[in-house]
C-alpha cells in the first residue's frame, strides 16, 4: 500500500499535534515534580566537586 499525501497530512494534523502536546506536558511534569528537585539540584552541584578521579 502506497502512503498517500492526504494520509500524511491527516496524520500530522491529528496525531502530530497531540503527541507533541502530550510530550510537552510530560516534560513539564517531570521537570517540576517536587520530588525530583533534590536530585536535579544535586546533579547541578555535583559537577563542581573537585574530586578528579573515577569512583572506585
Amino acid at each position, binding site marked *: 500500500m502506497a502512503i498517500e499525501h492526504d494520509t500524511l497530512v491527516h496524520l500530522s494534523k491529528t496525531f502530530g499535534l497531540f503527541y507533541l502536546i502530550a510530550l510537552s506536558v510530560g516534560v513539564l511534569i517531570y521537570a517540576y515534580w517536587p520530588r525530583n528537585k533534590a536530585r536535579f539540584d544535586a*546533579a*547541578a552541584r555535583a559537577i*563542581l566537586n573537585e574530586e578528579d578521579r573515577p569512583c*572506585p
Partner: protein
Amino acid sequence: MVSELTTGQRQMALTFLAMLALLGLFVAAFGRADPIGGHGWLVLVFSLLSLFAVLTNYYDPEPAADRSAAYYDAPVKAGIIIAMIWAVIGMFVGAWVAWLLVNPDLTFVEEAWASFGRLRPVHTTAVIFGFGGNALIATSFYVVQRTSRTRLAGHLSPLFVLWGYNLFCLLAVTGYLWGINQSKEYAEPEWYADLWLVIVWVAYFVLYLRTLARRKEPHIYVANWYYLAFILVVAVLHIVNGLALPLSWAQAKSYSLFAGVQDAMTQWWYGHNAVAFFLTAGFLGMMYYYLPKRAERPIFSYRLSIISFWGITFFYMWAGSHHLHYTALPHWVQTLGMTFSVMLLIPSWASAGNALLTLNGAWHKVRDDATLRFMFIAAVFYGLSTFEGSFMAIRSVNALSHYTDWTVGHVHAGALGWVAMITFGAIYASVPWLWKRKTMWSPALVEVHFWLALAGTLIYVFAMWNSGIIQGLMWRTYNESGTLAYSFLESVEAMHPYYIARAVGGSFFLLGALVACYNIWMTIRAPQPAGALQDDHPQERTDPVLEAGR
C-alpha cells in the same frame, strides 16, 4: 597513546590496521581507473602510518594493572590537538575563498582543485567536521568521564572513534579536491566514506552508552543528554540522507535513492538538523559542563535545562523545510517548517538565558578571565543567531533573505560567534586541566585571541548583513515600467566592499586560531611546574580522602 594499551590490545590494533591496509590496497587495485583508487591509496597510507606508530611503541611497558583508577585522557588530548589543526586548515581555506570572492585571480594556480567550487566544501567540512567534530568527540570523552565519575568503557574503541573519524574527514576533504562530491550540502562525501562514518559513529554511540551505564552518579548530567542526542540523531540523519546506490563497488560516483522534491526535502531535513544536532546540541552539551565549571557556579536552573533539551530535540526535527520556501515543496510543509522554527525560539532562548543567568554573580570573573568570556560571548551569540534564525525562517522574511549573503552572515554568527567561541572556551579550560598546568602558558595571549575572534566575528557578520540586505533589495526593486531596476551584475559589484570587509574579518579569526595553537603548544611544552599537579584541577588540595584512589 599506545602505552595505555595492554599487549593483547596492541595486537588487536595491529590486526585491525593490517586488515584496513589490505582493504585500502584492494580499493586501490580495483578502482585504479576511477578517482576511488586514489582513496584506496589514502586508506593504505593512513593505516600503514598508524601501524608503524603502534609498532614503534609495541615494547613500551604495559599499563598498571588497574587502569580504572584514572580517567582515560589520551584520546581527549589527541582530539583537542587534532581539532586545532583542522581549525587552522579550515579557517585558512575559508579566508582564502573569502579573498577569492574579492579577487577571483587569487587561485594562484590554473588547476581545477583551486577553484572556488572545490575549495568551499573543504572549508565547510574542515571547520564543521574537522574542528567542530573533533572538539565534540574530545570534550564528550572528557565530560562523560567526569560527570559519570568512571573511566571510558574501552581502550581501543575511543581510539578507533577518534582516528576513524579523522580518516573520514581526510577522505572527505581530499575527495572534494579531486572532484568527488555527491553535491549535497554538508553531506558531500560519497557512499564509501559515508559507510565508513556509519561504522565509526555506531562505535561512538555504543561507547558512550556503555560509559554511561558504568556511571557512579545516580543522575545522568544534562550535558550528557545533549551529547547523546548529538550522537544518536547525527547517526539517523547521516544514514537516511546518505542512502545511495553506487555505480559499482569500484567507482566513487553514486546516485541518491531519493529524487526530485523528496530529495530536496530529505537533504534539508538533514541539513537543518545537522545544524541542530551537530552544531547546537553537541555544543550545548559542552556549554552545560564547561560554563558552570569555569564560573564555579551550578547551572542557574537545572529544570529549565531539561525543558529546553526536550524542546530543542523535538522541535528542530520539523524545521528543515524552511530552507525550501517558494519551491515545489507543498505549501503546508513549508508552513510547518516555519512554525516550528518560530517555536524553537523558546527552548533556544531558555538555554541562552540559563547560561547568562548562571554567570549572574560571577561577572567579575567574566571581566578578568578571557576563557569564561569566550563562553559568555558564545551564549550571547547563541541567543542572537537563534533569534535571527527563527525570524529568517518566516516565509515573507525569507523572500528577502534567501540566496543572499544574509544567510551566510547568519551561519557565521552561529559558527564563529557561538560554536567556535564555546569551543575555544572549552579548550582553554581543558588544556591546563588535562596537562596538569596551573594556567595556560600565556593568559595574555588568550586575551589577544578573544579580541581577535570577537572583532573578526563582528566585522564578518556586519559585512554580510549589509551585503545580504542590499543584495535582496536590489533583486526585488522594480522601475516604473515594471521590470527589474538592477541587473544581477550590478548587485555583484555592489557587494565588493563588503566582500573585502568579510575577508578581513575572517582573516582576524584565523589569526586568533593561530595564536591559540601557539599558546596551547607552549602550554604543553612548558616544563612541569615544581610540585607537579597530580589532578586535573589547578587548585592545591590537602584533603587526604582524595589520596585513597592512587
